[in-house]
């Protein structure tokens, strides 16, 4: 299409926001399908948690230990931190669509730092929890869900780190940025699932 003419092909605004106006390359389709399968995996775990919660007798930790550590401020803080990293990650994707590699690297750096802080905090939470994995159905659900989510956060961070290093090496420009878009979509998924995992576990069901 000649420069200056307006594209007659309408692109859905959500699609345009998430992956830009270019035709999606196979790799982006692939990551989207893969994210659907991941959503089904967490659906299975979360469904199990909800079903087990129906049996209130066995739900509370059997050793009398209460929830993670009593105060709700810390999980709220880290939840907000993790979910809000979707913003810099998306800004990174916007930046590279315009060819701004420098801004992309800064934004990815922010995501990497906050994501790592989240994982470290998660390690402390496990260490401070007043129950073990064998102390009832709440405890088992807690460790299983936060554990698998944590593994996915680490996976997402490795994914982003790889693109960060590639960016440092001079990869990516306005045309070639599929891996950044894919990492961004995956990171949105990791944050979204945390909302589904942490809110029932910490605020409603404990």
């Amino acid at each position: 299409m000649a420069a200056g003419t307006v594209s007659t092909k309408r692109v859905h605004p959500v699609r345009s926001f998430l992956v830009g106006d270019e035709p999606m390359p196979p790799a982006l389709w692939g990551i989207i399908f893969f994210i659907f399968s991941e959503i089904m995996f967490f659906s299975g775990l979360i469904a199990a948690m909800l079903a087990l919660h129906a049996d209130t007798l066995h739900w509370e930790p059997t050793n009398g230990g209460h929830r993670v550590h009593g105060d709700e401020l810390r999980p709220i803080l880290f939840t907000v931190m993790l979910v809000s990293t979707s913003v810099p990650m998306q800004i990174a994707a916007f930046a590279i669509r315009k060819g701004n590699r420098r801004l992309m690297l800064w934004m990815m750096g922010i995501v990497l730092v906050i994501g790592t802080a989240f994982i470290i905090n998660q390690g402390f939470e496990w260490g401070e929890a007043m129950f073990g994995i064998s102390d009832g159905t709440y405890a088992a659900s807690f460790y299983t869900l936060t554990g698998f989510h944590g593994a996915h956060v680490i996976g997402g961070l490795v994914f982003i780190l790889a693109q960060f290093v590639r960016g440092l090496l001079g990869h990516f420009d306005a045309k070639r940025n599929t891996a950044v878009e894919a990492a961004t979509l995956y990171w949105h998924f990791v944050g979204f699932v945390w909302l589904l995992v942490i809110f029932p576990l910490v605020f409603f069901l404990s």
Partner: protein
Amino acid sequence: MATLAGAQTTGYAGVAAWRTILEWLTTVDHKKIGIMYLWAAGAFGLVGMAFSLVLRTELMETGTVISAEAYNSLFTMHGSVMIFLFLLPIGAAFMNYSMPLQIGALDMAFPRINALSFWIFLFGGVLLAMSFAVEGGTASAGWTAYPPITLDSGANAEKPGSGMDMWLIGVILLGQASIFGSVNFLVTIFKMRAPGMTMWRMPLFTWTTMVTGLLILLSTPVLAAALVMGFIDRNGAGGAFFEPSQGGQPLLWQNLFWFYSHPAVYIMILPAMGIVSDIFGVFTRRPIFGYRSMVLALIAIGLLGFIVWAHHMFTTGGVFLPFFMGATFLIAVPTGVKMFNWITTMWRGSNVFPTAMLFSVGFLMLFLIGGITGVFHAAVPVDFALHDTYFVVGHFHYTMSIAATFGFLAGCYYWFPKMFGKFMNEGLGKLHFWLLFVGVNLIFFTQLLLGLDGMPRRINDYVANPGWELMNTIATIGAFVSAAGMMVFFFNVFYSLKYGERASDDPWEGTTLEWATSSPPPPHNFDSLPEIRSERPLFDLRFGERLADDEHYHGHAPSNGGSSSKAGG
């Protein structure tokens, strides 16, 4: 094979052999990966069949030949191997080999992930097989692995050994391979189609690959969730998920397990249906009747497949019976549409019956019996009476095991010339068909009758009720007849690879794109593609000019019929 010949030109035979082996170990070519899936699935299928022969020998008469523990272990591994290591991967084999060729793609969308899928699958299979060597033996709770007997907590302390853990991890790996594979299939179908190959022009096998891919993508992760919870239950959580005394819920496992495993039976049967549909479209010398209704029926089966899982759990008392009964009955409708379309395709067709077509017709007959007995089960009162009897065993073997196997064997005979450039021997093929067809009916029809008579499944011995011994003996004879048939098949494969009659590029006068390239195809699949103006591009190529004058053909005449040259030849 072209690849072998290519490697052998490079000096010493030993070097050439190593090069060939290295080439196959590192290949990312969808055709080679498909063929490796085929060999692996065939080998595992042979193992699963050997297990079934031991089981049938045990059941031939009252009294025991092997211990109850060995029987439990063998029927568990028979089911697991046949489902996870034979039926699912052999479907993947054909989806890998044929689907990219059918849509005119150069390869899968992600060739390296495709290779990764295969090797994960093989590793998972080896892990399952190795569980025979560990203390306590293999998993022995059936392929459904219902807790709490799979747990080593509570009342079952120290019962199942680490074989159960290996089973859980092995199946997680196999599921992961499936998921990677399904992503690959879906993206390939959505993004890699040749110009002109619109969705409504895709061959039916490609459509089944797409629907199967969606089923795998959305159901397998749920099984993975159940499996990891089972693993955590056995190794730390102490039964919090599935052990009732610890607050766990055995029904939770059943729900999650069947949320995968009911779609999984469609994952096994749908590719077979696709193969059979393509074969009918060739050997009846007619276009498949109701192409669009076939696709819509396929999609309907896929959608309904997600809301019927609890019909496996009618007798647990934990599911809403009317809904799942109604939904299950509904599945008979699209299945019936497909059945009638196949029959109508044959109706007044110029049918020819090479072995591939024989197996397709055999598929129809076996699937009919399986489908009708399935409708019996969908009715809750009947299911209450027949649950856990041999009627169930007969039913599911008729559908997802034997009918699917017939579809896949049809695919073997149909695509063998494309894969290796040689025909399979027709005489041996017909012997194989008749031995297998008679054999499996001897096994499974008697099992239906035994089930109606109330014989319970999964028990290693039975009382000498009138008729039971006779029927079981007939079933065992049937098993050995079937095994003999399969031996003929395996002999035929090796015989035909060496001495088979050379096949042309399009030996069956096929209608779909895989016949537009050489046999076997070059690594890049196509040198050039014919124009694609319908779901039968090769038919257009062959008869296009004649049909250009025929205004009745598809309602419109192609403007420049048959102008493109035939590819690859």
